């Protein structure tokens, strides 16, 4: 990425200081989207796990609310690749699980600061995404899914035996030592005052702030030239090449960006669970994020997050029995069926479906 000043400079006045600040200032819709996201994040755990009547109906609980956000970040980043650039990776478990291991090992040997853990895990995931993306993008189209799948499986087997002395092999990594946030607040402790009712724990607050930042980042990327280039590549790879875009490098960039989000999420996953199961690297984990993203709706920022919520809800609540005794043993089968129906009939997922309904009701333009 070069730092040459964008052509924005011409015609626009303003010092370089104003330019620098300007980039970070929210613009128009961005502020609205961020505010709405913040509000939803702030009331979600309350509604889901503590609000009278509603939470009883939903059977939600605090820890699941946190987990939904974490997978939501993962799915959001995954959609930048699948929904916008049009590349289907079956290897994102490598970045999610890789970051989880990296953050876990980091906490054991270097520092248990949650912020530093997230940094460590994310850096690892980004570097890995760079490397695996470089290898997997050598062959285009349908090979990409197979190659990402293969290289991620290699990571799984690496950590299952040759690296077992670090990763704990089949038993997973158990040596996570998370410290207090800012050295002050244990993540599992309750927040003060009204925040406790709304958000619950420090852990949730920490994850929610990062989720908000991720949404902002995702929004920014989609509304930067990159977002448009990604869509152009998805739409017509050949034409993109023939307007002078280096398609290969943009694809790699998109892959790395989604690896970044997977890394953030994977690091949070280990902080949340204080444990890394070996299965976090298995290819079915990649499959899970694929399902969440498609279910929720590719090509939208929030669809995949909704998808993550639905998936985890079914996996953790519906599968648990009451009040879903009848379908509980079939939860995975049901998800599979819904997934296939979604691809078949509503390729734009839950989010797209509701958008269509809204457009239909309001009679048009969004």
């Amino acid at each position: 990425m070069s730092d040459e000043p964008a052509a924005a400079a011409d015609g626009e006045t303003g010092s370089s200081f104003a330019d620098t600040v300007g980039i970070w200032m929210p613009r128009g819709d961005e502020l609205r989207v961020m505010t709405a996201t913040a509000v939803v994040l702030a009331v979600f755990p309350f509604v889901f796990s503590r609000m009278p009547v509603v939470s009883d109906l939903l059977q939600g609980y605090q820890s699941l609310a946190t987990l939904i956000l974490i997978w939501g970040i993962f799915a959001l980043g995954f959609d930048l690749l699948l929904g916008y650039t049009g590349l289907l990776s079956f290897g994102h478990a490598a970045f999610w699980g890789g970051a989880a291991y990296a953050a876990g090992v980091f906490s054991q040997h270097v520092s248990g600061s949650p912020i530093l853990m997230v940094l460590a895990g994310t850096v690892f995931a980004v570097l890995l995404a760079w490397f695996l993306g470089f290898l997997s993008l050598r062959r285009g189209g349908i090979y990409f899914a197979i190659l990402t799948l293969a290289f991620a499986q290699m990571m799984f087997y690496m950590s299952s035996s040759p690296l077992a002395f670090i990763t704990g092999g089949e038993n997973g990594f158990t040596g996570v030592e998370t410290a207090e946030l800012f050295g002050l607040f244990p993540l599992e402790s309750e927040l003060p005052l009204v925040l406790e009712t709304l958000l619950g724990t420090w852990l949730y607050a920490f994850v929610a702030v990062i989720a908000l930042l991720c949404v902002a980042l995702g929004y920014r990327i989609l509304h930067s030239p990159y977002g448009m280039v990604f869509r152009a590549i998805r739409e017509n790879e050949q034409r993109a090449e023939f307007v002078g875009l280096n398609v290969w490098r943009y694809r790699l960039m998109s892959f790395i960006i989604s690896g970044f989000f997977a890394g953030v999420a994977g690091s949070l996953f280990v902080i949340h669970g204080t444990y890394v199961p070996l299965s976090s690297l298995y290819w079915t984990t990649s499959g899970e994020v694929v399902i969440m993203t498609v279910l929720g709706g590719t090509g939208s920022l929030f669809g995949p997050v909704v998808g993550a919520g639905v998936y985890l809800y079914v996996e953790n609540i519906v599968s648990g029995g009451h009040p879903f005794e009848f379908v509980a043993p079939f939860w995975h089968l049901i998800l599979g069926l819904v997934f296939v129906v979604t691809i078949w009939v509503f390729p734009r997922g839950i989010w797209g479906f509701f958008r269509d309904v809204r457009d239909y009701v309001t009679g048009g333009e969004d």
Partner: protein
Amino acid sequence: MALLETENLVKEFGGLVATDEVNLSVEEGERVSIIGPNGAGKSTLVNLITRRLDPTSGDIRFKGESIVGHDPHEVVQMGVSKSFQTASIFSDLTVRENAEIAALASEHGSFGFKLLEHRDSLTGVHQVARDTLDAVGLLDQADRQASELPYGDKRRLEIGIALAAEPDLLLMDEPTAGMSPEETEATVDLVEEVKRELGLTFVLIEHDMEIVFRISDRIVVLNRGQVIAEGTPDEIKGDAAVQEAYLGGVEL
């Protein structure tokens, strides 16, 4: 110095020779048409120049520099733009975005520009996109999704995308294929206008002889991969070899 030159350009597919020692030279500001019967090697030649195909032997130079060994997107960066035979556009993007993509790509190099920059701040790109859409007469439809356009407009957009890259040389692969007579007329006017206003150099691959004779400064006739004649429209009309090999009994 010629803007574009090919030197003894050969492309073989298996045993088939698609272009055979083609020496082509296009001067700056010139409009050159390449004609020839089906299978004469026209499309191969274009694909070689745009680097979609590797030549078997020979060289291609643009502005004096060899482009063999460059990737297609690099050739576009150097100033060679191509409009496709079919409406090769970005269907799910708006008309405006279609033009912006091309303007962005040429203005900001093949890779780069800031990840976190908002698109609205790229005023230069917006201006180029706007001017281009105005030039091809699609400005009033800028906010429509490209897939919604009628076919003729899609083809105009296709040409617009090629123009928005602000090329020095525009390769047009049968720009009027599949168009109605009115659309064809409008497209020819468009080419004339672009030529007048932007002073672009064109290389045109075309079947429609009427168009070729109307807008070319020079015509190159290919047959079986070889250049069999070259000259002004009048010279070509009178050329016996061309009559024989290509035009056959067609009344001109």
